[in-house]
């Protein structure tokens, strides 16, 4: 990453980093808005999933299932999809140790896939700079997500399918994975997580993410242990 601006409340570098990840989120927000307008939840409450859950896949599951499954089934589906956030929290815990208490409580609220991916490349920064970057990216996604889903309620999906913007996130995440891999242990984690993730890609509720990640973490930890023993 290029050297950022270090003054002011907003990290300009964070805005530039977040934009390419945010563009593909907009049509997804539209899809959720449309699902809310067609679903069985009262529209205002359906839209409030953006405010309070703030996680596209889980919101979509909740909105789609509401009224067609039992209340607990809807809740469990939403939670299973979001379980990966526990791992994001664990991965960032060492970095957040240097943050003030208010940041440790408030920061996680906006810890979505894209925010996690972007800030993982910034964990070496001084605490104050990391905080500004994190909050800039997090609030940018949070605010934009609100209007994107609201707009979806009104105008529906206007971006043509032929643009295939739905495939932009995996491309972006792949780039982040490859740019950030440094040590042998990380490479092992990536390869094993990817392989297990591929085999389990067909599982319900995106459980494959969890299984792939667990396998990758074990592989990475084993390689790191072996490297430490040797050196």
């Amino acid at each position: 990453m290029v050297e950022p601006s270090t003054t002011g409340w907003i990290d300009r570098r964070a805005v530039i980093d977040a934009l390419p990840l945010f563009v593909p989120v907009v049509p997804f927000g539209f899809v959720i808005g449309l699902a809310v307008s067609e679903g069985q939840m009262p529209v205002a409450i359906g839209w409030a999933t953006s405010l309070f859950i703030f996680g596209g896949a889980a919101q979509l599951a909740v909105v789609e299932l509401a009224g067609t499954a039992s209340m607990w089934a809807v809740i469990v589906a939403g939670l299973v999809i979001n379980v990966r956030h526990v791992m994001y929290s664990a991965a960032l815990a060492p970095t957040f140790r240097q943050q003030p208490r208010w940041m440790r409580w408030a920061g996680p609220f906006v810890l979505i896939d894209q925010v996690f991916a972007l800030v993982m490349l910034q964990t070496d920064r001084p605490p104050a700079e990391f905080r500004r970057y994190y909050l800039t990216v997090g609030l940018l996604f949070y605010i934009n997500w609100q209007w994107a889903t609201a707009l979806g309620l009104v105008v529906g999906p206007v971006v043509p399918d032929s643009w295939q913007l739905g495939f932009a996130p995996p491309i972006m995440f792949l780039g982040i994975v490859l740019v950030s891999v440094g040590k042998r242990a990380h490479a092992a984690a990536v390869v094993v997580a990817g392989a297990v993730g591929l085999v389990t890609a067909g599982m319900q509720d995106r459980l494959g993410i969890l299984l792939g990640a667990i396998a990758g973490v074990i592989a990475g930890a084993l390689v790191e242990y072996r490297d430490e023993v040797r050196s």
Partner: protein
Amino acid sequence: MSTWSAVAIVAVVGLMTYSMRAVAIVSLADREVPAWAERALRSVGPAVLAALTVNLAAGGEGGPSMEIAEVLALVAAGGAALWRKNLLVSLAAGMITLWVVSAFV
């Protein structure tokens, strides 16, 4: 669906989602973590991102599946990322490959 059960769903899923995002950050902050756990934590980021990438690219019920254009787009993006170490270049390479190959296949 009643208004109250909708409110309950959003409240519970919202609260639990926040808890899952906060649990490790808040609870590990003032604690010494054993060496094996530190090792595991350092691999969490790369492993989760790799699994997420694969699942987003090939996931869905009914087993892994991808179009040839998608596979080539990932190859191009991956190559560009390793070569230039730049996310925008990687994204551009992947999306352009996706559009071009889709137009011809």
